[in-house]
């Protein structure tokens, strides 16, 4: 019992997120017939898979007290890069994926190096990263490129059949990334270093933690995950599009914050990001089921939720201090 109390106390934002998700999901299930099914749940996961993958990377960066505005642009860039390499140059898909992942990680690592090495504001450098990746994406091609490839249609149609629930492929990738992020963020020395840097960089330095390598790795990992999200997006849409993911970085940050991670760094949980994503997806799906409410309500509701969670976090922090 004591352990449970301790967990609830330590992870109060996470618990609050879970409660909100439960309320939202149950309300939607009561209001809309056929909402409470595995098929709908699978669609929520699959529709938001690339947002979720990018948000997991964003969580790691936000743990260090940083931010990355470039993820949406990196998704657009890697999706058109993958499509062009496969269709235009005839590369086999795995090779194209490897190239895209390497590009994403390199861009992320470079931004991390600039941020750490020259003590530059993450906001500004990743803003430059956004412009750069978006521009290069449109440089490769200004139009969307379809990928008529057997591997692609095969993977896109693939479902892992659990008997009661056929998990779509992109949802599988998302769940794998969440698992990876969870282990990395909470069960490794690297994850503890991230949180230590985020809560107080000076103390982390005095404790002798490898600040530079940790921060640069966090940004490189985020770039890697963003590239992976771009690849999943090509699978999901069957094409590469340089305009993909415009404004996605905002949704990713919103999902992370709704998931209970502090934007000032040092506190949070990777699983919270998954819950935040499910809240996001549930609202989207509920609006779709309703049909009367227009799409712009999505943005207003997400903004209201952001406000609610930020004020909640603020109140919790004040109480603790």
């Amino acid at each position, binding site marked *: 019992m004591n352990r449970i109390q301790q967990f609830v106390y330590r992870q109060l934002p996470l618990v609050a997120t879970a409660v909100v998700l439960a309320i939202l999901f149950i309300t939607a299930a009561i209001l809309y017939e056929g909402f409470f099914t595995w098929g709908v749940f699978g669609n929520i996961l699959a529709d938001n898979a690339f947002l979720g993958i990018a948000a997991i990377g964003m969580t790691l960066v936000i743990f260090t007290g940083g*931010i990355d505005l470039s993820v949406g642009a990196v998704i657009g860039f890697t999706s058109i890069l993958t499509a062009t390499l496969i269709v235009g140059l005839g590369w086999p898909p795995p090779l194209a994926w490897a190239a895209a992942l390497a590009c994403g990680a390199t861009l992320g690592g470079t931004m991390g190096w*600039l941020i750490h*090495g*020259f*003590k*530059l*504001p993450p*906001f*500004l*450098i990743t*803003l*430059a*990263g*956004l*412009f*750069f990746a*978006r*521009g*290069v994406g*449109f*440089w490769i091609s*200004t139009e969307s490129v379809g990928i008529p490839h057997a591997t692609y249609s095969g993977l896109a149609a693939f479902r892992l059949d659990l008997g009661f629930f056929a998990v779509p492929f992109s949802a599988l990738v998302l769940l794998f990334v969440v698992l990876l992020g969870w282990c990395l963020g909470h069960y490794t020395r690297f994850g503890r270093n991230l949180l230590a840097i985020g809560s107080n960089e000076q103390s982390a330095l005095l404790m002798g933690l490898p600040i530079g390598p940790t921060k640069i790795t966090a940004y490189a990992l985020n770039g890697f995950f963003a590239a992976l999200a771009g690849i999943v997006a090509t699978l999901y849409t069957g094409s590469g599009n*340089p305009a993909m993911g415009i404004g996605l970085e*905002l949704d990713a*940050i*919103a999902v992370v*914050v709704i998931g209970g991670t502090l*934007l*000032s760094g040092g506190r949070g949980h990777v699983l919270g990001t998954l819950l935040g994503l499910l809240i996001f997806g549930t609202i989207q799906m509920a609006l779709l089921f309703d049909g009367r409410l*227009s*799409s*712009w*309500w*999505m*943005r*207003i509701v*997400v*903004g*209201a939720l*952001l*406000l609610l969670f*930020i*004020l909640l976090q*603020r109140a919790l922090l004040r109480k603790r201090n």
Partner: protein
Amino acid sequence: MAEKPAPLLVRPREHSPAWWPAGGLLLLLIANAIVNPGFLGISIVDGNLYGTPIDIFNQGSRVMLLALGMTLVIATGGIDLSVGSVMAITGALCAVLLNQGVPMPLVLMAAIGTGVVTGSINGLLIARFGIQPIVATLILMVAGRGVAQLITEGQVLLIRHQAFEFLANGFIFALPFAPLLVLALYVLTRLVLRKTALGLFIEAVGDNERASHFAGIAAQRIKGLAYVFSGACAGLAGALATSHIRAADSYRAGENMELDAIFAVVVGGTALTGGRFFLIGSLVGALLLQTLTISMYNFGVPPAVAPVPKALLIVAVALLQSERIRRGLAARFRRKAVPA
């Protein structure tokens, strides 16, 4: 004999950082003129001035206006991500009110008033509740566009109103009206900030909020006011945007404008860490940005690629402002200056 007290409010004369973007702007203009000698040409049509340089001022006027407000916010050590969405809201509001026959002065007051209200929300969250500026303004950035779409019900609203269209498309004394309006606002802002202690207060709050609080400055109020001013600028910019295209497009109006405004401010020499600001630098930065975009057409590069030089420019400016590079450069120059 008592020593003469040191003058308190003397600002050390220094090299204005606005020279950097001004130099960059000049280089870019020269490069453009070499590629296309007609680039700098200005002609007179119907008694009004036309030409690419006029276009740069005209197109850049909205970012200049946003940059004016953003400069003060950044000087307090904050940031305002919501200006683009606020533009969308006020642009939509203008179109709806005009189409209902509301007189234009009221429409403009409504636009600026809405900007003041949204700015107050930001200011309240940041100054009163102590929420980080990025997060607090992110809320309105996300929700604001939804509100704008709610106002226009997802439609692109066309307007027909001569006086209102004059705002962004009209000419006065052969010169375009919108840039003149922005310049007038700049002069007014500069007078208010530099001829009173307000500018100094803003810099003090941005430099060290605690210290300024102990020095008796109402730090919270100053911070809040900066966001209100930024909101008002965004409100007016939204009206200008609607006037410019003679329609309110709640999906695209002000899209990425917050990033352009921040970019203009940083290029103009105001560091994101706050504590100092250079209004004229921000205006020159906004012009540089607009020239960069127009140059892309001139150089025959697809305009969608324009973000790449923008990105390189930001990194270069950020590096020039970084402590490590500055110290390295200073050491190099000193070594040269003192040959032992």
